[in-house]
């Protein structure tokens, strides 16, 4: 595992999601990448019946033995990495923390290896109806653990692969300042050692955006 950058791929009305995935897959294969199976990242939301505290429970097929959960009380997010048995625990606390099934999101698709790079083309679907929401492209440069050191290199890779849709600056996730418990000066994720939870938290940010869009759409006609 190394620095991972998650990029939402904008869809115009000319092409559908599966068409874009196929086009990008062909491009990767032409760049001498090899497809190494599929991947899946999913996220469930459990909401407390007393206050608005949420628990996001997420899985990443890259770490099949772990459950990533993030406690979110609106102001602060507390991450926790546990064994798979955590899923069963969440079932036990069901009356207090109820699962919001219609907010469940998945990102899944083909996984490619290109030298030391790992590329995943994720189609995002939401709730049991599997409504298609968009595309999330994940690029992982495995040998490097410090985002700021290899961002330019990853940017060049993204540019060669996504062209005009590639980002020009490092995602905001890495530049937000995070309070430092050991030091008065806050630090930035970009200068910190990358952890598996960072990938999950990037997914969570994008998943939450899709959820907000969907809720806004549902609320829209009532106004």
């Amino acid at each position, binding site marked *: 595992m190394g620095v991972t950058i998650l990029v939402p791929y904008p869809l115009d009305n000319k092409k559908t999601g599966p068409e874009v995935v196929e086009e990008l897959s062909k491009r990767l294969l032409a760049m001498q990448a090899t497809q190494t199976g599929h991947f899946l990242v999913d996220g469930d939301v459990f909401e407390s019946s007393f206050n608005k505290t949420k628990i996001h429970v997420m899985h990443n097929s890259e770490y099949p033995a772990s459950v990533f959960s993030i406690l979110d009380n609106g102001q602060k997010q507390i991450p926790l990495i546990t064994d798979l048995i955590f899923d069963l625990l969440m079932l036990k606390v069901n009356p207090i923390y109820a699962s919001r099934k219609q907010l469940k999101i998945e990102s899944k698709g083909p996984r490619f290896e290109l030298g*030391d790079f790992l590329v995943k083309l994720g189609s995002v679907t939401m709730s049991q109806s599997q409504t298609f929401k968009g595309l999330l492209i994940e690029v992982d440069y495995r*040998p490097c*653990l410090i985002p700021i050191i290899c961002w330019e290199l990853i940017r060049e890779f993204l540019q060669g692969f996504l062209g005009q849709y590639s980002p020009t600056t490092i995602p905001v996730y890495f530049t937000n300042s995070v309070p430092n418990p050991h030091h008065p000066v806050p630090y930035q994720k970009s200068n910190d050692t990358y952890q598996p939870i960072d990938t999950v938290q990037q997914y969570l940010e994008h998943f939450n955006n899709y959820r907000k869009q969907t809720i806004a759409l549902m609320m829209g006609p009532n106004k």
Partner: protein
Amino acid sequence: MDVQINAALNGIKNLRASVSNIFETAITAEGTFLLEESIACVTQNFKETETCINNLNAPSVPFTLGNTSYLNYETDLEKQNMYNELVNGYKWYEKTHQYSAIASTLLQHNSLKRSYFSSSNKRRRLLTGAHTVPPKHVDHLISTFNVNNMQLKIYRPFATNAFLHINLSRVLKAAIILRGLMIEWVTVKGFNESLDNVDDHWSESRYEVFRRVQKAAHSAMLHFYSPTFAELAIRSFITWFGSYSTLFSEPCKMCGKHLLNALPPTHRDVRSLDPTHEECRK
């Protein structure tokens, strides 16, 4: 003589090609004009071949085939193929000879001698080799190294000989296995790969980029090696190796890009320390 034979063979090849061209044109049958053109081509090629053949003169002396001529007397059907095999074997041998001659001149340019051994018997005095330096001296020398972004640590899992562990600026880890002051082996690993076990020193990195750096380090270790200036050799190597702190962040000096074949510039010039892709240098 060789030139003439080659020209004649080429002539025949062209003639054949133009003849088969006629048949192809005849099959597709797109008017007689094209056919006429190909026939003219054949006539031209035929004339050229004829002149080439006329230029050839028969060898004045018969070829001496040496002992191989005895193969003519072979009556066993199975063994009659031996002549062809013999010719192939000869060609192969000739090539080996040629390549080894080239290799030998190349090696003479780059003297990679790791010992004092020389064939001259004139004067032989006992020198303290770079590999018999006392541990105290090694420790002292290494403690004087001061390269930016580099942390050095010495381990001695095997009695006297030191393992020098390097942490380079959160980019990579390396272990230099010393014998006295002589560098015997270099292992390069990722920042998140283990070097705690002795066995880890002989396994390759999971990542292509560090395997490339290790290869470069091995050739640099031979480049800097000097039996008489062991301290200078190791000091130069460490300084050179320190330039890898920008492995992921500095683009190639030649092409200006970060990536080539999905790899960053894994080569560092031994003098200027400039980063380049392996394929870009020179």
